[in-house]
């Protein structure tokens, strides 16, 4: 549920070859986009263990972005296909836990797509803002006996 004055905290796992470079291009081109996303560079979107995503959400993130090379362009040939296969399974699992699917996105951003990256972060930030804070720890604890 949308909350007044809520600034989403979004963790972004960006692949070193395409997406992080694309984000970097947005920066050097002085494009303005929300500071809500914290970018973490990984070598490949296929390196993103679903554990990272779940850990981020469990420990305070309101949203997670995984960004990689377009299919066919992966520096390691197949890494982004692994990410592609893991993503719908992860969404299925998160849905069972009660985490809205709008909070985790997998997108393809190439090294030259600085503008697209900025637009993506703008759009995703608003998407998560509308969902409201996840506050997983507090909400889970409220359904647990305090001992």
């Amino acid at each position, binding site marked *: 549920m949308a909350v007044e004055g809520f600034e989403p905290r979004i963790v972004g796992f960006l692949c070193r070859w395409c997406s992080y470079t694309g984000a970097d291009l947005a920066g050097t081109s002085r494009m303005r986009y929300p500071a809500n996303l914290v970018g973490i560079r990984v070598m490949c979107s296929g390196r993103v263990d679903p554990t990272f995503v779940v850990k981020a959400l469990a420990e305070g993130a309101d949203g997670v972005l995984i960004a990689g090379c377009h299919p066919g362009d992966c520096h390691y040939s197949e890494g982004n296909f692994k990410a592609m296969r893991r993503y719908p399974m992860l969404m299925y*699992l998160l849905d069972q836990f009660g985490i809205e699917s709008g909070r985790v996105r997998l997108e393809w951003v190439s090294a030259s797509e600085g503008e697209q990256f900025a637009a993506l972060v703008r759009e995703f930030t608003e998407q998560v803002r509308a969902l409201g804070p996840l506050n997983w720890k507090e909400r889970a604890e409220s359904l647990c006996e305090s001992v």
Partner: protein
Amino acid sequence: MAKPKVAFYWCASCGGCEETVVDLAEGILKVVDAVDIALWPVALDFKLKDVQAWKPGDVAVAFINGAVRLSEQAEWVRLLREKCSMVVAFGSCAHLGGIPGLANCTTREEILANKYHRAVTLDNPDNTEPQVHATVNGYDLDLPVFWKDVKPLDQVIDVDYYLPGCPPPTKLVAEAIGAILKGELPPKGSVLAPEKSLCESCALNKTKPETITIKTFKRVATSTPNPEECFLAQGYICMGPATRTGCGERCIHGNMPCRGCFGPTPSAVDIGTKMLSALGSLGEADTEKAAQAFAGTMADPLGTFYRFCLPASLLKRRVP
């Protein structure tokens, strides 16, 4: 010299862990030769006041099985922690929450409503529900508090060691008791089982092809695995890659894929996300649409991955 004393206690438990001690069969004679059993509700008639009378350290080890969901269970395990020098979390429920841990998919309110108001077979015209205090015919009656969630033992008391498994195999139990009596234990907090994954010791491992590719997931509910080929390679979700070994692969020998009762290996921080990661790598799908369809052939990832360890997982519970 007096024999060391041990205690067994059970919380939210099915009784299978008591069975496994009984299943030591003749091996139990060696145990009773070496120790005095000072508490074992399923088999011996010691009372709460007997335990309250112990001095701290009187009893060397308490083997506690079952998850904790009732205030009474919490009182007992805290008492045993105070009186016993060592506490071993015995079995999946005490270790990780076990099957009762799946109750963390719902809420206390839903459970009570289903049990006492909605069940089709109920005859409860006055809509009564158990109360913590009630007076009936002039007598004051107390029931334990039913907690909001299920907890593994170490979320309630300090635990020295864990004996994993549903139930722990008799061999592991006998080894653990032997190690405790000899004082030859690993660092406190250790799980008393090897650190490798099930695949390392599974007889079907050698049948694994170079690359495993899964087109659709198969389920034992709707088809029978081939007992001579790696189950994962056949498309069944076998938790072996992410699960600690030490069980002797009793499920595999029964033509059932591993369900993960020993819990994650030390390097698998969260068993579910690790398995998900592996299954994603093994799937055969090269478009987003195919990946979506592939995921759709999986039934109930939460229940499949976290069958034994939901309360100990990263997310801990479902939040409806």
